[in-house]
Each structure stands twice: as structure tokens, then as C-alpha cells.
């Protein structure tokens, strides 16, 4: 499985760092940066909105209809929707999209005045948020449900207020899970491919698309190994994220079981 070492080799088998050096190419650096900020932005927005939804679900019966439906929807959107999400957003804010048309006809507001951005990196923001929020709901809900009602009651008997409760007890207790989930969301966006691939047939604004180009390129031979280097780059980023995640968990273990 770790035949990704191909990144270090050229086609003829000789060991070389040329491909790794190619990672320093400004174009490629730019795509990494794009991937990073895109992932960070959608992760933060997804985390906050997702947390709100989780909060709204506190106290709902776990075996009730509302919960089942939310779980199923979250599952579908978070994990199985890549290509279809792309379609959905084309239908929504594409050139002939529902919202685009409505905004243009009803409000005289043309969102594409400065060029069509749906098919480039900024266009990925909305679709990504669309699956980040459900993912957040899936991974964060258990944490919220682990909040014990006794804490809220004890807080009240000791003279605390609702705001005080969240400030002193709720948020601190939830912080590790929240950060962990945030990191997970980041990793998810960073490695996501399907939606971008479906939306952009040419151009490689984010790293996974660069890899696609490298793998399927017909013009330059030996590019498969560039793909390996790119993959290596991705793995490095993921490894950093995962170790941060482990760090956060370990700090929380100070007072958790």
C-alpha cells in the first residue's frame, strides 16, 4: 500500500529527489495553499454551524423520528454525495441555477458579474460546507450528548446562571471534542476529491486535482511519480493534522477517563 514511495523514484527507477523538488514549483505551492485555506475555512464554518445543530438536538429522543432522519441525512450528505453534490450546486448557483436566476430576476443581483467562480476554488466553498456540516453533526453529537444534566443542575444549586454554565462548564468540557472534530473536518476537506473533480473538468486549483492531472496526463511522461510526490505532500499534511488531533486528545485525557 505504501507504494507511494514512487514519489521518490523516477520512471527509470533511479532514486531522485527531482519530483519532491517539483513540489516547490510555485504553481504547486499555490495549489497547496488553496487546499489549505479552503479546508480551514470550510472546517471552521462547518464546525460552528454543525455545533449549533448538535445543540439543537440536545434532549431529542435518540430513538425518535427527528433523530433518525437527521442521522440519515447527515450520513448521506457527509459521505456519499460527492458527485451528486456537485450537480446540486450547479443546479443551485450555476449559471442557470435556481438561486442564480432568482437573484438575477427578482433582485437584479448577478452573482457572476465578476466572472463565473463556481468552477474554481471559491466555488468549492459552498459545496464543501454542505458536507462539512453533516460530518460535524455526526462526529460531535456524541460529545454533546455526554454532557450530564446533573452538571447543569449542580451549577444551578450552586448559584450559577445559564450563561455561566456554558462559559465555565459546558464549553471547557466540550472543547477537546470540538477541536478534534474541527481537525477531522479539516482533514476531510483537504482530502476531498469527488466534488472538485465533478465541478472542474480542467484546471487544477487544489491538490487532489493536481494529482489527477499527474496521473492521467498524456503529455508528460513520468508524471505518475509526480503524483506520488504530491500524495506524499498530502500525507505529510494529514500526518500533522492527525498528530495535532492526538495531542488535543491527550491533553483532554488529563481530566477525562
Amino acid at each position, binding site marked *: 500500500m505504501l507504494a507511494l514511495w514512487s514519489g521518490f523514484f523516477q520512471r527509470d527507477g533511479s532514486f531522485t529527489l527531482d519530483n519532491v523538488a517539483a513540489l516547490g514549483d510555485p504553481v504547486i505551492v499555490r495549489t497547496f495553499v488553496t487546499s489549505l485555506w479552503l479546508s480551514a475555512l470550510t472546517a471552521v464554518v462547518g464546525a460552528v454551524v454543525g455545533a449549533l445543530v448538535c445543540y439543537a438536538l440536545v434532549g431529542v429522543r435518540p430513538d425518535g423520528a427527528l433523530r433518525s432522519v437527521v442521522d440519515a441525512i447527515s450520513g448521506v450528505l457527509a459521505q456519499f454525495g460527492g458527485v451528486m453534490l456537485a450537480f446540486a450546486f450547479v443546479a443551485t448557483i450555476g449559471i442557470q441555477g435556481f438561486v442564480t436566476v432568482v437573484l438575477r430576476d427578482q433582485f437584479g443581483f448577478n452573482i457572476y458579474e465578476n466572472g463565473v467562480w463556481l468552477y474554481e476554488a471559491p466555488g468549492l466553498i459552498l459545496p464543501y460546507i454542505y458536507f462539512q456540516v453533516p460530518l460535524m453533526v455526526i462526529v460531535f453529537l456524541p460529545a454533546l450528548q455526554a454532557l450530564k444534566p446533573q452538571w447543569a443542575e449542580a451549577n444551578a*444549586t450552586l*448559584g*450559577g446562571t445559564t450563561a455561566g454554565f456554558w462559559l465555565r462548564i459546558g464549553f471547557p468540557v466540550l472543547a477537546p471534542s470540538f477541536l478534534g472534530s474541527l481537525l477531522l473536518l479539516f482533514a476531510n476537506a483537504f482530502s476531498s476529491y469527488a466534488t472538485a473533480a465533478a465541478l472542474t473538468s480542467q484546471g487544477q486549483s487544489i491538490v487532489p486535482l493536481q494529482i489527477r492531472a499527474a496521473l492521467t496526463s498524456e503529455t508528460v511522461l513520468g508524471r505518475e511519480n509526480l503524483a506520488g510526490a504530491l500524495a506524499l505532500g498530502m500525507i505529510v499534511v494529514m500526518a500533522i493534522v492527525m498528530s495535532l488531533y492526538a495531542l488535543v486528545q491527550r491533553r483532554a485525557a488529563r481530566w477525562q477517563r
Partner: protein
Amino acid sequence: MTLADPSTRTSAPVALVDVVKRFPGLTALDGVSLELAPGEFVALLGPSGCGKTTALRVLAGLESADDGHILIDERDVVDVPTNKRDIGMVFQSYSLFPHLTVAENVEFGLRMRGMPTVDRRQRAADMLDMVGLDHHATRFAHQLSGGQQQRVALARALVTQPRVLLLDEPLSALDAKVRVGLRDEIRRIQTELGITTLFVTHDQEEALAVADRVAVMRSGRIEQIGTPEELYSRPISDFVADFVGLSNRMPAEVVGGVAVIEGQQVPLIDADAAPGSVHALVRPEDIVFASEADAHSRPAVVVTTSFLGSLRRTRVRFTDGVEVTLQHEVSHAPGPGETVRVRLTGRPVAVSRV
């Protein structure tokens, strides 16, 4: 200024007056009235579902009352939110804040009241000392045993010197041995601090052991309130007699102001009981082994006998099929199948209609 300083004691009289609480499909409290004198330790005792926890929670403000009054220090607090009622509460479990150390947990209520840090730390330390956990101040909840956690919870509730202390089955989740030790400690501390206390439990032995007075609840109402001795020896109903302590149910006749049980005349607790067929409720220690010579003794066959350390309980069956349990000293150890003779001591009994 120590915690036990009388001048800082703020115990207050507490009363529930005709409190009603309804849930969908169920009336949890059906006009409950209960008074606690300042510094008194009252146990609220009853089976699951009788409403005792609801009563406590209504007093705390964690549930709202549909009707009635709740008086703390003679002020009706029915509309006062929980965090302004100046109460201390110990929950059954899970109530310690997991991300704070033991000391920080105990300081929490003082922090809410705006006490400066130095004073806070000192008071919390004193309180931890009082419950014997001063060496655990920097630990976290999950590092403590169940008994230790409840002691921290107790310290946390008491350090603010609330006007009333509420305990919601604080010992139910603990091991038997820890339970006994901790309940005595709770009583000791409470006596020292003199805080009016309401203690909810389903364990009658616990209630009798620690409380000044016990209120027995059933189906949303208080059946009887009295000292442990009163409840035990003068239960006013079948339910109370059955619930508080063991008792044997023996068929009897009420004739001329006494009960006739197995041919023996026994005085009644309630002298005005109507004549007729009844069940007499006889305590195990009120049935003893006797000799043939004793006119009141009757033959019976031993069914089982259990050794309980400091005493023995033996179950016997009379010739008419009625079975009773005797409680007696350890030295006498009849074997199953043996024939013995038993009689009643003659202490007054409660009766219930058949």
C-alpha cells in the same frame, strides 16, 4: 471564622405546604405538606415512584410546582429560580464537574457568590479537611472512588453555608460498606454545622439510622411522619409497617379491644380498631422460642434459618400453614425440619383489614 462557628450558622425552617406537581398522565405530588425545624435532619422515605425525589426537586426549584407553597426561612420561594434559593444539593451521581479539580469543584459555589480568591481557597480547604479529603485537593473526579466523590459533592454543597441541604439518594450508587460509613459521616457533619437537611432514600434502614424524623411517602402523599422509633413501633398503616422494618403478617381476630393471634391475646397499638378478622403485623423480634410449659406456645416446624453475624433469623411454619420469621440470638440454631415451640412476646401490634 471557622465553618462550625455558631454565629455563621444560617439554618432555617423549611416547609412544603400542600404542594402539587403533575406530569402528563401522573400526579407525582398530591398535596404534600412537610415542615422541617431549623437544623433538623428529616428523611423522606418511600418506594420507587412514590414522589420523594420529585418533592426534593420541587424544593430545590429543579421542577416547578403546579400548586402550593415552598417556604424557606418563612419566605415563599415558589417563583424564585434555583440559583437564588441559597440551597446546597448532593445528587446521586455524576454531579462533579469533570474538568475541575476537587478544590475547584468545592470552590465553585463560593465563586458564584463573588468571594475573593484567597478566602475561597481557605474555606474550600477547611471544608475538604472536614470531609477528610484535604490530600486530594488537586485530583480530578474520575481519580476518586464513588465514596470520595460523594464526599466532595457534600463539601461543595456545604461550603457556601446554605440555608438548607438537600440530598437525593446520595448513597444509593455506592457499595454497602461505604454506604454505612458515609451516612454516619453525613450525619456527623450535619450535626456539627446545624444545617436543616432533607434526605431522600428508598432504604428504610438508612432513614431510620440517621434521621431525626422520617416521613414515609406513598403515591404522591405522605403516609406518616415521626421519629424512627414511632414509625417502627407505632406504624399507622399496613404500608408503613410493611415498609419500615420487617414484619410478619398473621391472621388474627380483634375482640374486645385486643387481638387474638394463634390463641394468644395481644394488645393493640390502636385501641379503637374495629372488631373482626384482621392481619396482625408482628415484628420478628416479637416472636420468641418458648418451652412446652408456656401456655401461649404453639408448635411449628423450622423451614430455613440464616446466620446474619450478630443475630439469626429463622422461618417457621405453624400447623395451620401460616409462616413467620423470628429474629433471635445466634446461640440458638435450630435445623430445618425440626419442631419447635414459639410464642409472641405480647408487645402491642398494628393491624390491617383483610
